[in-house]
């Protein structure tokens, strides 16, 4: 049973679940009624309630926060671009298209303006509650270090065997190190994992 539909409000939840960025960012702006945002909202509210009751442990690795923070900053820069586009076009006339990245390279200090958004985002995840998995949590005991393959080795394994890109392969390697086999993701690249429980929208 590799794929579990989170649109089913009664789907059986695991004891431990690890969330990827696609689930958290699905709650972005949308004028659609129903669809992914609705189901993910209901799913997150459900696991939030169950987590508060001690029935499920929801984990998020720092690499997932990395991806979320990156997307939020990227989007915030893109939003800011409207007030800087003409200035940047005059400054870089050889560029055919001005992007958020050009604005970042030109005005990296604007990140300070966006930091409150990142702080609020983090606080919201704490409120769910999500448990953040830091790199030191993966170190384990001497016995683990001596007997288990490294995260990097397992990352390469997943890149090849799934196949999947490095960021997602690293996510799997971290979940494996934590002995977690249940993942919440909307990324279809994970659908080929037959021995994992993938909580997604089918």
């Amino acid at each position, binding site marked *: 049973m590799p794929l579990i539909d989170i649109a089913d409000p009664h789907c059986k939840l695991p004891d*431990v679940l690890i969330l990827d*960025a696609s689930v*958290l*960012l699905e*709650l*972005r*702006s*949308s*004028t659609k009624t129903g669809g992914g*945002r609705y189901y993910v*909202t209901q799913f*997150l*509210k459900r696991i*939030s309630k169950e*987590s*508060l009751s*001690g029935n499920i*442990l929801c*984990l998020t690795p720092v690499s997932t926060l990395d*991806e979320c923070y*990156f*997307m*939020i900053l*990227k*989007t*915030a820069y*893109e*939003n800011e671009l409207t007030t800087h586009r003409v200035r940047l076009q005059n400054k870089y006339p050889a560029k055919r298209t001005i992007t*958020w990245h050009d604005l970042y390279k030109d005005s990296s200090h604007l990140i300070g303006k966006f930091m409150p*958004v990142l702080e*609020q*985002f983090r*606080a*919201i*995840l*704490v*409120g*769910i*509650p*999500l*448990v*953040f998995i830091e790199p030191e*949590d993966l170190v*384990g*005991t001497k016995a683990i270090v001596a007997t288990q393959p490294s995260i990097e080795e397992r990352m390469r394994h997943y890149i090849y065997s799934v196949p999947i*890109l490095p*960021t997602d392969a690293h996510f799997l390697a971290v979940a494996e190190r*934590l*002995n977690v086999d249940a993942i919440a993701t909307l990324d279809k690249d994970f659908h080929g994992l037959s021995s994992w429980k993938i909580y997604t929208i089918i």
Partner: protein
Amino acid sequence: MNPATSASESLFSLKPSRGTSIFPQQNRVFVPIGRHRIFVFPSESVEPSREELETALENVITAQTTEIVYAQIGSPTLPELLHLKYQKALINAQEYRQQFGDPIDNLISLLDHVADEDTWRRLLDEPYR
């Protein structure tokens, strides 16, 4: 007597009526008092500083802090570590909710505030790195 050993023995001597659970077979102490949790993992190879243990002990007795005091003496197992992190996350979540309300509703509002629907869709469609 080693000051650390002395403080550690004081922790072991806490009465069960104060909510103390002692698992001597695992050489570990687990002290819950209300919302407060203090874990101590004694080990022969790594000892806590006297200050660390005295602070932990003081917090057990007075329960003055809302923080979890974690005296890492040796390494907890992975389930113990996750349990510890969960207990801390739970306290923080309850405090967040008391102050700001439902986090999922707030996440929707925050992401709405960052950018409009078209901007999000366009940028999320790009591969991540």
